[in-house]
């Protein structure tokens, strides 16, 4: 995208997708602050690639998911310190699921969030995670077993 191209369209997409993407990233990372940073990065990338992007919502979602995965990788350094802005929930169901999500591996968490929050099919999740649908099934099966144990 050139510097001046498609600002109105981009703004519309930005307004529409900002909050859902922040929520997606927050569920994945467990931190609103990190989520916002990730989504900002994703939109920054979308802005740069605007002219070549056919489906902005899908593009942003993939970018957010990828950046969440990158964030998990580089979290090692930050793990020594507390995360900023963790999700604070008072609802018992929310708390239970939040704690249960922490018991999942990052990849499993992504799969669960994409399946049960974004309501994507296994095929769509496989496309985003760049793996086979069978792998997604396996991820979900393992995640479900953990969640079942945690939410019992």
């Amino acid at each position, binding site marked *: 995208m050139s510097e001046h191209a498609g600002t109105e369209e981009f703004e519309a997409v930005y307004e529409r997708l900002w909050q859902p993407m922040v929520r997606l990233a927050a569920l994945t990372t467990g931190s609103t602050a990190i989520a916002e940073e990730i989504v900002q990065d994703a939109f*920054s990338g979308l*802005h740069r690639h605007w002219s070549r992007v056919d489906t902005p919502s899908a593009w942003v979602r993939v970018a957010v998911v990828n950046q969440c995965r990158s964030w998990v990788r580089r979290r090692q350094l930050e793990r020594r310190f507390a995360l900023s802005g963790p999700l604070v929930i008072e609802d018992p169901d*929310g708390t239970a699921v939040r704690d249960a999500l922490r018991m999942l591996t990052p990849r499993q968490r992504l799969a669960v969030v994409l399946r049960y929050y974004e309501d994507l099919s296994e095929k769509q999740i496989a496309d985003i995670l760049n793996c086979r649908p069978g792998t997604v099934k396996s991820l979900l099966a393992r995640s479900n077993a953990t969640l079942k144990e945690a939410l019992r």
Partner: protein
Amino acid sequence: MTNDIEQRTRRGLAILAASVDRSAPPIEGLINRATRHTRTRRTRTLIACLVAVSLSGGVAAAVVVLRTPPTREALTSGTTLGGQRISISEFKQTLPDTSDPSRSHRVSGLCIDVFGPQGAGPSCFNYDAISKGPHASVFKNNRASVNGRAHTFTVSFLIFKLPNGGLSKAAVTADNYPDIALDYFVDSGRRLVFALAYSDLPRGAGLTTVSPRNAVRRSHLDIVRYPKETGGTPR
């Protein structure tokens, strides 16, 4: 997954998601960042890489160049100068209150570039440069020992990006920060910005400490190096 567990998971996720209620920040910040990133950093990186490779014939030199901070134009082209000054005491007031984790977010809009002399520990920082340079900052991957830990960062003086878009700067003497630590904040444009904080901040104080190199990489902030002009950080 049984229906019950699935339903609980879905409901829990929906509750968690609903707890994240953040409106989109002004799009101008995003566009500035995106275009500036494209215009300066990427071009500069490419040119630096090509020049380094062509001059040296080696990849190692290119890597060195790529780690060199960007030039002054990058900062001046992407920021607005002329913001009101902020005093040290005012700055100190913006430091997070360790008893209130949420207060760290009150410094939104504050932008601080941190840098300093080579190999300096906290006691060797020289902030005289603040009165000499217009707004230039220096960043170099030096090592300093803080609280017995080796940190790959240097600190010299601070630049503040004010909420009104202007920049201001203030000196901070190292003696005031015997246990200096590098923490970051995100400004209103969701750009990563830096702040200094006491390293005895309790964990969970709402801050995340990262290496400055990592922070810079993530922030796309423009960090420029003007050791002579700014009165100098020894090299």
